[in-house]
């Protein structure tokens, strides 16, 4: 029996661009949906993101990437998590990411990515569905 528990999510804003409004909106929306959101702030390196994700034992990592560095950042976080034995973490997020890149990242093991302007409720539902399915598999 697995007791129901809140979904834990790390929300981070990697890269050098200056503001984290989008990431904060996402963090607040996930909290309002009943999730425990660990927010780490701006300018996070993949190492900082992976370390925080491991220490906080999160289920999900959500990255907001506007800098165009998604093709290096997502795979790097994924790799660092795998090195620490956390290949079960869902990595999702959003930003200005071309569909081809989304597909390529998906093949590498990154979850669904959302373009700018996606409503936060879509992300909430995606995470909830993913979590429910994983809980069923574990049961």
């Amino acid at each position, binding site marked *: *029996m*697995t*007791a129901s*528990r*809140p979904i834990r999510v790390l929300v981070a804003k990697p890269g050098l661009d200056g503001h984290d409004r989008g990431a904060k909106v996402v*963090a*607040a929306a*996930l*909290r*309002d*949906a*009943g*999730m*425990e*959101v*660990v*927010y*780490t*702030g701006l300018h996070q390196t993949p*190492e*900082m993101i992976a*370390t*925080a994700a*491991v*220490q*906080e*034992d999160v289920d999900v990592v959500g990255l907001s990437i506007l800098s165009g560095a998604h093709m290096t950042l997502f795979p790097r976080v994924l790799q660092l998590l795998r090195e*620490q*034995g*956390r290949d079960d973490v869902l990595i999702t997020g959003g930003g200005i990411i071309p569909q081809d890149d989304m597909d390529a990242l998906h093949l590498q093991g990154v979850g669904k990515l959302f373009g700018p302007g996606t409503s936060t409720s879509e992300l909430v539902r995606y995470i909830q569905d993913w979590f429910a399915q994983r809980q069923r598999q574990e049961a």
Partner: protein
Amino acid sequence: MTANGVAADRLLADFTARKPAALARAISIVENHRPGCDRLLAALHGRTGRARRIGITGPPGAGKSTLATQLVRAYRSQGLTVGVVAVDPTSTFTGGALLGDRIRMEQVALDPGVYIRSLATRGALGGLSATTREIADVMDAYGFDRVLIETVGVGQSELEVARTADSCVVVLVPESGDAIQTLKAGLMEIADIFVVNKADRPGADRLRSELKVMVQMRSSRVRRGHDESRAPRSGFAAHAHPSDAAGPPSLGDGSAWLPPVLTAAAADGTGVPELLSALDAHHEYLSASGVLVERRRARLRARVVDVVDLRVRSRLWQDPDTEAWLDTQLAALESGGTTPFDVADELLSRSARLLTGEADDLHR
């Protein structure tokens, strides 16, 4: 062996090998009372008791996380490893939480000798303080030299969390002058050390003096035998506070600890060395006076009480037969044929086997 048992053994092996992911998972198991929680804590019990536990509490925005980060850096420069538990209030509305303490701890985030864990205050089974204490136990067993516990000191349950530490630092800022009056009783009771933070702002010295007066009043009342109702003698505030001296705080009349009142500017590290010496002095006092042993013993005792409470509750209320039996009593209760007290007594007496755990040994 069951699949659960194999997973538990692997977790314990990884934990012993000091893999951070295993520590993190162990804490989650404890936090959520997942299956295997009791067995895990039992396996770790013999490894606890080494870490010094330091609580940091105070109003939101006082600089607790900033100060915690400074303490972490100082301990790391002494070669000590540090685990941090940062407790943040959960939104009562949705049960979700936004945990932001890590933002301030970025400077130490990548240090392999530091582990930071954010904890929401959601209605943990057995209470927040019990859960926090267990998480501190897990960190202690992992081998950290220091365990810092940051809580927002507003509610009763947060004050209880602070009490699970060996030493409790209460952080206030010049702006919290007014709040002191309302927080006074609880804060006075738990504070081993006061820090007036943001000393770069006006009003820090005034708050410091006020706190010293309060500490003096309390200590003289305590010396006179806990007579809280007696009005304090006038004039003693003019005497020098023992902690006025720069060195380690004095022990008052030698039998009790007089909480020193320090000032700091956590943002730039001012006052941190003084806080470190005060913490060391407090630890010395705790060890020398036997209070440390006493507190740890009290903690272990409270632990057993908690476990009993939890087991009684879960064994009773997770038993479908008990629930069903209770439902059959409702009609008589409604009509006045029986009372809640009679039903409660009968329920307890018919649950004797259930309460000893014979019924659910298989699930553990």
